[in-house]
């Protein structure tokens, strides 16, 4: 009798343990999904403004790198030189946004003013931004491509639920601007039919400048979150293609705010799962589980969606075409 009770207890106990384990697993995956999706969301929302105005943004990667490096460098400087302590990550965050903006100005001038090919300029920015952080960190920190470590309590807040709230507010703001304001209407019309917008008295280049510069600020912000939020320093090429994943999410989200956010969450989820599998579980042979196939998911999905296999994803009609005013 006593023995039977013991078994019952044990099985009850282990089920409860399993439940707790499952629940904490779900929570931890959800939290890391939000954390990993955040830089993607910021960059993708940036790309949204740029691409809806008709300017392709493969330079998101470069802008994120600029933001990430500058944010870490400025935070470190504010911490050690100015001694502002816990205020330093906010100064760093501002630095990251300014860096993204600065790169966006170069990009905008070459694409809009000089009507350079947008993909070529974007590729140039990306190559430039692989080099610049290394170049500057060698000079500033005598290191080969990374900034010094920033103390843990001088980083951005990392509570995933707080960040989720910020992202939701941002989503609301962006949807409002895009669909409910005159600026949003002009932005979309310039991306779809610049000739008509021009005829209606809208300055195509001014709207496109705004779109590209906003993209720079948001991508810089995304990069900053990567270096002084998720991590505590900048390391060489730390974005590791996240700018391109953000671009993929934008396409997967059909250039609309809510689906783009969902796509970023999906891609953040795949990254969270691959990290989880990599760290915890092993194959019987002792090797890590092949996460390469999970890592491929965002890219494969983007190709599939772009080809129109799952619903169609149609880019803004004037995307990538420099606008030339008729004389």
């Amino acid at each position, binding site marked *: 009798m006593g023995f039977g009770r013991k078994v019952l207890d044990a099985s009850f106990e282990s089920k409860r343990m399993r439940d707790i384990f499952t629940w904490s697993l779900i929570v931890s995956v959800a939290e890391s999904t939000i954390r990993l999706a955040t830089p993607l969301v910021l960059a993708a929302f940036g790309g949204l403004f740029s691409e809806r105005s008709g300017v392709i943004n493969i330079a998101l990667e470069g802008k994120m790198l600029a933001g990430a490096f500058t944010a870490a460098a400025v935070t470190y400087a504010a911490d050690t030189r100015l001694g502002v302590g816990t205020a330093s990550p906010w100064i760093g965050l501002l630095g990251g946004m300014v860096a993204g903006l600065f790169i966006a100005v170069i990009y905008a001038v070459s694409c809009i003013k000089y*009507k350079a090919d947008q993909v070529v300029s974007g590729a140039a920015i990306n*190559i*430039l931004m692989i080099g610049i952080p290394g*170049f500057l960190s060698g000079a500033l920190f005598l290191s080969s491509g990374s900034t010094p470590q920033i103390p843990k309590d001088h980083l951005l807040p990392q509570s995933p639920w707080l960040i989720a709230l910020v992202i939701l507010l941002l989503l609301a703001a962006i949807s409002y601007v895009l669909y409910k304001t005159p600026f949003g209407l002009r932005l979309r019309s310039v991306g779809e039919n610049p000739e008509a917008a021009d005829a209606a008295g809208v300055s195509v280049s001014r709207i496109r400048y705004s779109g590209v510069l906003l993209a720079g600020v948001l991508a810089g912000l995304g990069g900053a979150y990567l270096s002084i939020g998720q991590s505590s320093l900048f390391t060489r090429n730390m974005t590791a293609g996240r700018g391109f994943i953000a671009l993929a999410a934008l*396409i997967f989200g059909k250039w609309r705010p809510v689906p783009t956010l969902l796509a970023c969450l999906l891609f953040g989820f795949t990254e969270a799962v691959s990290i989880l599998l990599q760290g915890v579980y092993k194959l019987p042979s002792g090797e890590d589980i*092949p996460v390469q196939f999970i*890592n491929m998911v965002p890219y494969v999905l983007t*190709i599939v969606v772009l080809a129109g296999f799952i619903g169609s994803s149609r880019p803004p009609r004037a995307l990538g075409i420099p606008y030339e005013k008729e004389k």
Partner: protein
Amino acid sequence: MTKLARELLFPLIAVLAAFIVGGILILLIGDNPLVTYRLLFGSALSWPDGIGYTLFHATPLIFTGLAVLVGFRCGLFNIGAEGQLYIAAFATAWVGITFANLNPWLLIPFCFLAAIFSGAFWGAIPGVLKARFGSHEVINTIMLNFIAVALVSYFTQYHYKVPGDPILQTSPIGEGAHIARLGKFIPGFPERIPLNVAFLLALLCCLLVYLFLWRTKWGYEIRATGSNPSAAEYGGISVRTQIVLAMAVSGALAGMVGINEVLGYRYRYYDGFSDNYGFTGIAVALLGRNHPVGVILAALLFAALQHGGIYVDGFSEHVTKDIVQVLQGIIILFIAAEAFFKWVLGGRFSMHRLRANV
């Protein structure tokens, strides 16, 4: 003559302007640009190491430069050379490992074909996607780069690595698949310098690409598609076929990087070997004005920079070899904006007209 002068003038201005901007950046961080530039170029002409390594580094850049060029001439932007060369290098190594005991006279051509056809296959995918579904080749090639890197790293790690090897690389290819290093034929040129037969193959490819684009019907149709797709279609050219063909040829050229890397240098597939060759290929093609001869010159410039970067790292106080990437980025930016200058001057070549069919 004036046409040639103009073709040479713009790249030279872009390079010069980039070096001036780069020089200002170097001054700003407290080094002497002249010293840096002497370190960058001073070693490139030394015999045998400087010249040997410059030509060795130029080899993959000529291949990727040609790959991007063929795409451009058809109005396509192949950003996917990076993925194509990874797939091809792995395929080359796979053949070299699997058929290691084959007679070299069979094995080497077999490896060559593996590089060429696997590259062509990976390049043709975005071509087909564009021709069949109209989806943008820029996005698809970017996505396929990541997929390629993940795929080959999976196969290397789980199927072709020597057990216990801490480095992510395959087991070595059969000795019959090795192609000769040029040191074997040139007296006084040591065989430790990895410059190999693939360099001669790269030069041959420049000639072949020239003949293909300007002397064959297919090449003519590719260029016609590139300069005006609707006119080409009206003239009876199947634009869709040309897109797939151009992307396949482009991928094949990028794939030949695998021959240099696997058969002539490391004799195995080494994961992550590419030093951004695919992306530098964009710079090479643009600076080379989308002409095979220009590609050779531009590849030599970037290869010299790449080799000189090591000396900058070793001998200067603040500047690191990252200056090479910086200069490369600035050069492309200037070239991109240069289309504007050319447009002002009434030139016939214009970047956005080149891609007007996207």
